[in-house]
């Protein structure tokens, strides 16, 4: 098991990304340790009457020169709402880096992986795309959302590598779901593996297509968590070996074939 930390970060920047999402840049007090694409943090919430437990959030980006980590967060309830009110200079305690990140070894996943993100599920893919590019691979990104407003960070992804989009209302890119895109149909054979993070129905659909076409596929699950460190057993998913496996320590990234969908 890799070393994990509990650290008070300072909010360096908080900005709105769209009507429901915001981005938090957190400054480490000293030297940011190694964190890998696909790993997550457990964010302690500001004291409040409504929310209690920490919230698991993916590491969206890390800057080892500036010693900062960036989180991309969607407001869905009280906890993520509370966090959206932090101000530059505020302290936020994180447990990190948690879980196993993506397998980005090109000897195993090949040179041309397809990274698919739905909604705020695009968050962990950004670091993965940058890493793959840096090691000389040729990643392709496919982002899906309801409409163009919800297509997060498409320009940032496009600045890193080839990026295509789908929207359900055809306001940008191909109309429909990511599974309607040509990458998931006629052109699927171009890709050596798939990495996906998004809503469960989307991941399930992609896992099915990947399996039918014999393409290795990694999924990043977002089960509800209490501890995030393997102590409470609240976050389990059923794996094909018939056991309940903790998403926080056994994942959040799983080989799609090992998950009982």
């Amino acid at each position, binding site marked *: 098991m890799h070393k994990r930390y509990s650290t008070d970060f300072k909010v360096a920047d908080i900005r709105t990304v769209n009507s429901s999402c915001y981005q938090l840049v957190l400054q480490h007090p000293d030297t940011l340790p190694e964190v890998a694409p696909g790993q997550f943090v457990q964010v302690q919430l500001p004291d409040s*009457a409504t929310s*209690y437990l920490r919230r698991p959030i993916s590491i969206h980006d890390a800057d080892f020169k500036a010693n900062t980590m960036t989180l991309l967060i969607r407001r869905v309830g009280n906890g993520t709402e509370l966090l959206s009110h932090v101000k530059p200079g505020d302290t936020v305690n994180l447990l990190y880096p948690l879980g196993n990140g993506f397998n980005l070894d090109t000897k195993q996943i090949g040179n041309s992986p397809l990274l698919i993100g739905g909604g705020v599920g695009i968050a962990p893919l950004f670091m993965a795309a940058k890493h793959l590019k840096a090691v000389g691979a040729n990643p392709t990104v496919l982002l899906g959302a309801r409409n163009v407003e919800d297509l997060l960070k498409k320009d940032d992804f496009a600045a890193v590598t080839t990026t295509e989009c789908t929207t359900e209302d055809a306001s940008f890119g191909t109309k429909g779901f990511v599974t309607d895109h040509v990458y998931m149909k006629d052109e699927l054979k171009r890709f050596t593996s798939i990495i996906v993070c998004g809503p469960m129905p989307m991941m399930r659909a992609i896992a099915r297509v990947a399996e039918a076409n014999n393409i290795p596929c990694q999924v990043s699950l977002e089960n509800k968590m*209490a501890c995030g460190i393997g*102590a*409470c057993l*609240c976050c389990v998913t059923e794996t094909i070996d018939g056991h309940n496996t903790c998403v926080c320590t056994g994942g959040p990234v799983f080989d799609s074939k090992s998950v009982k969908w």
Partner: protein
Amino acid sequence: MVDLKVNLGNNLVLNNPVMTASGTFGYGLEYDDFTDVDRLGGIIVKGTTLNPREGNAYPRLAETRQGMINAVGLQNKGVDHFCKVIYPELKKYTKTKVLVNVSGSCIEDYVACAERIAALDHIPGIELNISCPNVKQGGMSFGTVPEMAAKVVEAVRKVYPKHLIVKMTPNVTSVVDIAKAIEGAGADSVSLVNTFLSMAIDIKTRRPILSTITGGMSGAAIKPIALRMVWQVANAVKIPVVGLGGISSASDAIEFIIAGASAIEIGTANFINPNIGNEVVDGIADYLAANNMKSVSELRGSLII
């Protein structure tokens, strides 16, 4: 210097009154990166059963105001796995006392599980979790009927010579009746409370949030009720009482000790602050010093009425 040591009897002496509650601290190992586990008075590891258990289906967690409801369902790999694989790793803790929470669904299972743990030198005691349903008696929890509680405690007492803590459920009309039955059956101490039976509903879907519909509530919100129960039991039995339920700070812990608890356990608060146990140890020491008290026993049961 204040003396934080507490003697719970039958060879169980803790370096300080702070333990971690079963099911919230894994095997201690999960917390090594975040806190000095060995500095705690004791750690009570995950509920262990005779046979492996997969636990309940997901979702197992509902957050509530200042609390949470869980439906983990005692997922664990069974006592043999514990003895073979986990126990050797726990020997690295030399100062803290490692206790095992023993659970079961019939008396025979509790007994067999306790017997195996009795053979482990490095485990000075067990905490018998009698909140589990008795599958041979219509699924009613052992801990809800004095006679049933006494029976399981007597049976385990026969095979388990080391320190036997019996952990009570709060889901009863009279905790005092149950506590007296447990004391009469030969327990060395009692701990309370386990979780409160509760439920949560998702109003968008009108479905229960937990796969099991109902679950056990823990966390800060339950503290006042737990404190009342600990006070009642401490006044009714002679054996030491271990208090828990919602403890999230040193002042919470001190309230339980004033109410009569000899030691305390911290559960859900570990999820929010994995170093909370050691912060509470320091806070108790500071409080004793500030109040010119030399030991925890001076504070214990010092409620002024």
